[in-house]
């Protein structure tokens, strides 16, 4: 039958089509890091060494040796060694140079975000229904340390960014103090893979950023020391292979970066974070105090019940800029069962019953839950994109992220202060039978962490990039709304959080205004 021939042809074509589709879509090349082209800095900030540091006492608190003379044999030998390494560069090494680019702040921020995501897993219940918490003294014992929840991650981003910023101010100071010219000015024949600038080359800012970031992250993510070492080795090698630096630039930068990181880690050791996750008796007393004060209390709704909320004393952790947490604590939320409460509850029920595709998308877009970089990480990604867009040099980049992340951690501290002061129950607890599309976190409702973090981040970004104000404000508002759509916050949680975050950020912005940067 001729029809059979058609069938044969159909089958053949189908098989062929399958093979074609298969081979094509096998190459599902999905981006594993943020792609950006190395760029020429918009400015060099020659006076950067005079800017005010956040935590270091002076730009020479960490000392480095003066470089060798640019016309010395020692330096010429270093250049020759760099040229030899460049001449024998493999294609993998060339990829590494392009990956790191000439602003390693962007990559180290990305690495920090990835570690936050990797460690942002809540401990599971044990077989007997109890929970074991990570032990900083024994990080490799399950559950692994740290649990990089939003407060922990906000702190990690802040320490890394502040350390980068303080170290780079010192770097700029030494660069202009010692005045070793940019490498291409001394030897015009060196092959440079990245856009060069006239920034003095000693010490290497890339090496400073690499050392400081590696040290801070190794302390905060101790199980990643090996990984961070490998990234650091690759970054330092790329600095030489880029044709922008010689070994002594890198060695001096490494030493400076390590020194600054050490000072910041001393601050971290005494900032109160180690007491944030309280034992149950303290947690219970905090809870009882709220009940006595307001007549309500939040209780975890998971099964088995988590006996202690997340970091009840994160609100006591040392702030970067805020001097008075009570001054930025929002007013008392509506009494449960009051008209204002019922209005907020009805809104949540209405959304849960009629959620639109757009609301669902917003809730998921800003979800930033377990296994993600957290809301502070989400803002770091947005800020990082601006560093590229505005072609900021490493110092300006560090400044942007330092102020944003200081404000974001302060927002978290202030938010947690309110959360455990008011100890307000979540919608799933206070509204009978209520369910939503997001998992409810293990801490009280009022105020919304997302809203507070986001408003603070947006305020700093709007200060630094005034042209972006309308965008960042819209994002913060959207992040705040997202928690209502997800069914895990009342509107008053989000609204109070936005106000709180904006107020908190003012303290940091006021510091930025007088730090000497123009």
């Amino acid at each position, binding site marked *: *039958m001729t*029809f*059979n021939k058609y*069938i044969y042809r*159909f*089958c053949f074509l*189908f*098989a062929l089509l*399958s093979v074609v*589709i*298969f081979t094509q*879509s096998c190459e*599902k090349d*999905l*981006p*594993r*890091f*943020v792609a950006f082209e190395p760029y020429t800095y918009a400015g060099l900030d020659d006076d950067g060494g005079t800017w005010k540091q956040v935590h270091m006492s002076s730009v020479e608190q960490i000392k480095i040796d003066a470089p060798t003379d640019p016309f010395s044999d020692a330096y010429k030998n270093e250049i020759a060694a760099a040229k030899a390494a460049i001449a024998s560069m493999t294609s993998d090494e060339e990829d590494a140079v392009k990956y790191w680019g000439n602003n390693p702040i962007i990559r180290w921020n*990305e690495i920090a*975000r*990835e570690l936050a*995501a*990797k460690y942002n*897993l*809540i*401990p*599971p*219940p044990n077989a007997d229904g109890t929970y074991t918490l990570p032990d900083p003294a024994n990080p490799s014992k399950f*559950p692994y340390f740290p649990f990089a929840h939003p407060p922990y991650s906000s702190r990690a981003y802040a320490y890394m960014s502040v350390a980068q910023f303080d170290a780079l101010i010192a770097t700029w100071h030494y660069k202009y103090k010692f005045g070793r010219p940019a490498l291409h000015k001394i030897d015009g024949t060196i092959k440079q893979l990245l856009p060069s600038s006239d920034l003095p080359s000693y010490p290497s800012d890339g090496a400073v950023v690499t050392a400081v970031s590696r040290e801070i992250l190794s302390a905060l993510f101790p199980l990643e020391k090996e990984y961070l070492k490998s990234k650091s080795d690759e970054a330092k090698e790329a600095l030489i292979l880029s044709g922008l630096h010689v070994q002594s630039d890198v060695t001096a930068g490494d030493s400076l970066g390590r020194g600054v990181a050490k000072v910041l880690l001393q601050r971290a050791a005494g900032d109160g974070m180690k007491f944030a996750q309280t034992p149950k008796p303290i947690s219970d007393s905090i809870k009882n105090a709220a009940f006595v004060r307001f007549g309500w209390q939040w209780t975890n*709704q*998971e*099964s*088995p019940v988590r006996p202690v909320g997340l970091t009840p004393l994160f609100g006591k952790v040392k702030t970067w800029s805020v001097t008075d947490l009570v001054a930025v604590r929002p007013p008392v939320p509506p009494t449960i069962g009051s008209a204002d409460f019922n209005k907020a509850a009805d809104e949540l029920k209405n959304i*849960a019953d009629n959620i639109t*595709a757009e609301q*669902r*998308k917003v809730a*998921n*877009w800003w*979800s930033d839950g*377990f*296994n*993600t*970089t957290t809301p502070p990480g*989400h803002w770091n*990604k947005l800020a990082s994109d601006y560093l590229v867009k505005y072609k900021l040099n490493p110092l300006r980049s560090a400044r942007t992220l330092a102020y944003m992340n200081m404000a974001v951690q302060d927002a978290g501290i202030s938010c947690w202060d309110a959360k455990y002061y008011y100890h307000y129950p979540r919608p*799933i607890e206070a509204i009978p039978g*209520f*369910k*939503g*599309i*997001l*998992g*409810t976190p293990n801490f009280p409702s009022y105020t919304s962490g997302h809203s507070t973090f986001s408003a603070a981040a947006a305020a700093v970004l709007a200060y630094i990039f005034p042209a972006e104000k309308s965008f960042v404000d819209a994002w913060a508002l959207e992040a705040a709304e997202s928690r209502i759509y997800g*069914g895990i916050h009342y509107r008053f949680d989000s609204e109070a959080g936005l106000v709180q975050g904006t107020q908190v950020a003012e303290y940091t912005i006021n510091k930025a205004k007088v730090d000497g940067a123009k």
Partner: protein
Amino acid sequence: MRFKIYYFLFLVFLIGTANLLKAQTPSDALMMEKNELCIAMIYQQDTWDEYWEGSLLRENKNIGVLTRNTILPMVAYGITSKFNIIAALPYVKTEASGGQMVGASGLQDFGIFAKYAPYEIKKESGSLSTFVTGGFSLPVSSYLSDYMPFSLGLGTQEFSLRGIAKYEHKSGIYLRGSYAYLHRTTTEAERDYYYADGSYYTTTMDVPSASNAELALGGWLFNRALQLEAGYVTQTSFSGDDIRIQNAGQPTNKMDMATINGRLRYFPSVLKGISIMVGYTDVVSGRNVGKSTILSGGLTYQFMLKKPQSQP
């Protein structure tokens, strides 16, 4: 917390339950006559109270029992006795007995399959027949695949190619084996960063492709009024990450499983063209999937669209 049960269900349906249809499925060894149409309506209830988080079998009281109900209308049509077309469109509803996360419901993926029977060797002692099925399915609603374990489906296009061989003894006892390659494309999440053994800066998630292999032993009783069958099916993803500790699953996960199933199909002599079927499936081992028990039941009705032409 998320599993590929929908997909599994669909498969079970195609491989198992529906394969009771004399009217056939993409994976069975049956063909419709020319111009014969079969309409089927199947209901399935899939429940689990344990799942594999990676290779760890665990419970999660914040899910309790996850129930996935599927209503699956399907049609099969014989263009010729050697070339059939099959189409299916499941409606899925999910819910958990524990926790405070809301379930999902809606139309899942529309699937269309072409089945061809190239060779058949008939001898007195029995017959050996072979089949090839090619299929394509794609989501027909805007369900979110990145909402495990409640999501309706994987949210991906799937191209499948299956080879089937069956030997049937003259007594009515048969043995059937099949192997399929299931090529999945990608799915879209509603977030632009996710972690799957490292960072991904995209809303696009790679859904691992998989193989599916089946071995079934069955037989016809009471003058072919009753069909009984037992089968073993394995499904293995070619790539993918594990569900992370105490975290929800995601469409990038490597979802593997082995299942055993049993089914029965009855053709009442008083109802011409009608069959009744019931099935039972149990997931016996797995990775990143629920340890499901699946009950299914359905009715099929088959009839000639056109009267067979008289022989010249």
